[in-house]
């Protein structure tokens, strides 16, 4: 297949698709006889990325694949397209989400233990509905509480390709000037919680 056509197909598919496309999704666009090699697809993506340098949009990799998006610097103008202001999330929601993201998998009880307040069912339901979190199992203790973890959609939404890209946890100081780091104690708190 000519490289120009290959590029047009990949470009077209990425702009037409409502969800990010992974390499294997792009491979599916082609019949067996014309299917390009993975490396060729990747090289084409790099080409497209280069060509977009000066454009109002860019081609980025997020958790579930590649997508075109409008450059962040243009957000101010883009907002005028919609009447509604983007939603602000409450601190409670962000704290809950942060705990799930950094500590997954964990139960609602684990979250309450750290936050010191009850986590409302509505909040958990909203996160589940947005498909930012999902139930990945149940802890084997009485009541079999659900264990929550973040999803690929969560990463997509926050423009991340994997959990490693989350900002590092800050505010970590050592206790009693010693070997006992907060992270260590966090870790042990978590294990205590899991053992319960």
């Amino acid at each position: 297949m000519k490289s120009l056509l290959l590029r047009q197909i990949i470009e077209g598919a990425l702009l037409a698709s409502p969800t990010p496309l992974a390499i294997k999704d792009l491979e599916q666009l082609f019949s067996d006889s014309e299917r390009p090699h993975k490396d060729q697809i990747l090289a084409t993506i790099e080409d497209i990325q280069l060509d977009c340098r000066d454009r109002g949009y860019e081609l980025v990799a997020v958790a579930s694949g590649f997508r075109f998006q409008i450059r962040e610097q243009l957000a101010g103008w883009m907002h005028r397209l919609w009447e509604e202001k983007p939603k602000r999330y409450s601190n409670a929601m962000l704290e809950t989400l942060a705990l799930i993201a950094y500590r997954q998998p964990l139960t609602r009880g684990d979250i309450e233990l750290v936050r010191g307040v009850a986590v409302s069912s509505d909040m958990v339901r909203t996160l589940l509905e947005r498909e930012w979190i999902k139930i990945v199992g149940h802890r084997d203790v009485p009541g079999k509480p659900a264990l929550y973890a973040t999803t690929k959609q969560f990463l997509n939404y926050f423009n991340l390709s994997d959990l490693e890209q989350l900002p590092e946890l800050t505010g970590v100081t050592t206790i009693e000037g010693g070997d006992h780091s907060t992270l260590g104690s966090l870790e042990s708190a978590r294990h205590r919680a899991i053992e319960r």
Partner: protein
Amino acid sequence: MTRITPKKIQNNAFPRQVEMPFAVVQGQTLSVVPDDLYIPPDALEIILEAFEGPLDLLLYLIRRQNLDILDIDVLEITRQYTAYIGLMHGLKLELASDYLVMAAMLAEIKSQMLLPRVCEISDEAVDPRAELIRRLQEYEVFKNAAMNMDKLTRLDRDVFLARAEFSGPNRVILQPTVTLDDIKKALQSVYERSRLSQHHEISKEFISTRERMADILKQINNQSFVTFGSLFDLSEGKLGVVITFLAMMELMKERLVEIVQPNSFGIIYVRAQEL
């Protein structure tokens, strides 16, 4: 679970002495504030804004005074914390039990620190503050993480999907099938939920769970055992029964009452928790 909801100032009567109000905040009068309480100028506003919880309030108190978490003066912090709780109580904000639990924990730490150590057998001198410090630090880590998360580039706020129409021939979009029955069921489940939350709404407006909790405690404190059934007043209707039941659950959770059933399917008794 109730949280501090400043907008809904409860009208349930806590008998209070009438004193000269020194301030009026959102239509409520404030009368007593300990003179030596450290109250920054914006404190009242901050009190009225819900904290994320007791740990959040504590962190705030510590940070406002530029104190190090590792070196908190528990006596001072406890005093400040309870003063704030008192202030909120004065504003008749319904306090979540989480805040009261923390107050109890602080009081316990305070008493441990005041009591002379009887024996120092254990070589690990356990600082009674250690657990609190650990929790505060852990909470602060995630409070920061939440703030950082809010700064992440976010779809529909910082970046937007770039899409182009595809309307060429052969556009075969396989859409999920939906039946009328699916729609009917979906609507029924919304109604079910909205009915439940409506009960909740009514409960906030007419009968306070907290008030009912106090009533129940009064009833059982006079007697050693009370039968479960006698605590319900059927004339109050479904709503009253639900509130009483919720109040009892809450009392159990806070370990203020104990519920026992000697035989299966037998009579259930409620008694005040022995301390």
